[in-house]
């Protein structure tokens, strides 16, 4: 089967734009989507109509009613997925949840057909939203430290808090999260999910103050990825109140990682000492056997 995707020039999405106008009129509250511009509300008493225009955005507007009110397909998909998250605890990460989300936006349930039927896009969307929330949180904390309003945390505490904050975002969806994890492991999704995971780990280390440029960079990320993944799995089958078992597990793993780095440098210096000792012994033996003599 040959699939053909189209990336058309950005045209105004007539139907969804009209829907948003209608819902704006009725709710009279500003939209929260940042990359959209608000239009001047039409004079009171006018019901917005569905204009059957051609598919070109009208910047000069009909009678001054429309301004640059348009969104791209990606933005609309983003909105649908965000609305769909609310239905995940009930329906799981499925096309049904997406259909319900589309319904709340006033769109037909058939709009869920824009996405894959296994819910991959919904899960990836959720993960990337969580990652941005984490970044914002870490940035805010960093600003507080820079302004002197808070203490700089020691590394292990910082890592612990960051991973805990990120994992807490899963709590509302924890029942269906194992399903999401298995979907993220599908070969089709592995590039994107791996990408999201590594950029999140990168972020955490960045805000932890890691500026290494040597092999340490890789080891640090590998270690933190291991900690995050194992803690996530523990959280899946943790039934203790407030997930205290999970946080204790996290604390232990981070502590392990800290001692491991100390141990590693100890091992290295011990190893060097041992090697030097062996070399010395070998030279001594050669001397004793008379092999070092020059004839």
């Amino acid at each position, binding site marked *: *089967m040959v699939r053909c995707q189209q990336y058309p020039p950005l045209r105004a999405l007539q*139907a*969804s734009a009209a829907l948003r106008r209608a819902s704006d009129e009725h709710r009279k509250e500003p939209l929260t989507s940042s990359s959209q511009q608000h239009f001047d509300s039409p004079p009171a008493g006018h019901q917005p109509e569905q204009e059957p225009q*051609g*598919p070109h955005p009208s910047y000069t507007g009909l009678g001054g009613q429309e301004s640059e009110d348009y969104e791209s*397909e990606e933005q609309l998909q983003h909105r649908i997925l965000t609305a769909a998250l609310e239905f995940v605890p009930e329906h799981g990460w499925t096309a049904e949840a997406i*259909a319900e989300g589309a319904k709340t936006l006033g769109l*037909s349930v058939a*709009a869920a*057909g824009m996405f894959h039927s296994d819910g991959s896009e919904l899960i990836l969307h959720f993960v990337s939203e969580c990652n941005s929330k984490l970044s914002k949180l870490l940035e805010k904390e960093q600003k507080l430290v820079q302004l002197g309003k808070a203490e700089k945390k020691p590394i292990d505490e910082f890592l612990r808090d960051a991973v805990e904050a990120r994992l807490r975002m899963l709590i509302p969806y924890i029942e269906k999260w194992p399903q999401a994890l298995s979907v993220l492991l599908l070969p089709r999704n592995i590039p994107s999910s791996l990408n999201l995971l590594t950029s999140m780990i990168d972020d955490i280390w960045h805000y932890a103050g890691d500026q290494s440029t040597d092999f340490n960079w890789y080891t640090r990320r590998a270690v933190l990825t291991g900690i995050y993944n194992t803690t996530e799995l523990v959280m899946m089958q943790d039934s203790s109140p407030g997930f205290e078992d999970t946080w204790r597990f996290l604390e232990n793993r981070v502590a392990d990682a800290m001692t491991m780095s100390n141990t590693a440098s100890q091992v290295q210096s011990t190893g060097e000492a041992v090697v030097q000792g062996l070399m010395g012994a070998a030279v001594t033996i050669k001397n004793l056997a008379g092999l070092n003599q020059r004839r």
Partner: protein
Amino acid sequence: LINCISFPCPFFAVYQVFESVAKKYDVMNDSMTLGIHRVWKDILMHKMNPCPGTLLLDVAGGTGDIAFRFINYVRSVRQRQLQRKLKQHQNLSWQEIFESYQKDKFNSLGDSQVVVCDINREMLKVGKQKAQHLGYSEGLSWVLGNAEELPFDDDKFDVYTIAFGIRNVTRIDLALQEAYRVLKPGGRFLCLEFSHVSNPLLSRLYDLYSFQVIPVLGEVIAGDWRSYQYLVESIRQFPPQEELKAMIEDAGFFKVNYDNLNFGIVAIHSGFKL
């Protein structure tokens, strides 16, 4: 019956074609495509993946193939939904379980509905008989109508399908505009149609089969050589995948793409009214 075989046939000739083939339509489909048309229609249904509560308009759907598949699909999805709900209701009292059964017993389709619209009375008649014979009663309606001028209001339907019908419409752009009109915002347009094979070897075999075998089958089974000659020629004259995609976009649909089935013998085009 038909005088202009090799020229684009006007409206009445198309009408007569389907009037004469209506009774043998399904049999001819099976023999021409060696039964593969059933798989194509199943794939269309899977692509649509409708959830209960969907309102489908099947245009040029005369004998009801798509409509019946839709009802089956939605029914099984609904069954799974109800089973899941019951599993969650483990701790309810018998009274509550009984009540939930009552509520859902009369809702085996979950409010889904399909409207079959065809321009040809004969095809609709055959469809209605089939429905009765196979036991489909709820969620179905049969409407006589022209794809270029649908007798429905704006923003009514969730999904619009046209399977092997858009080829016979004289003004395809009008049909696409009507499809856009009757769909709800967020609604989906799906078109299953014969298309162009790009692979040269396959294309030659396909041409051979089309021009040598199909009209003969038409004569033997339906007693109508000319209709099937017309069919094969109309397939060749139909716009190829990319061109149809451009036409669908011109009508205002977004996220238009197509899937080739069997190397381009058949293609499913999909677009959304956004």
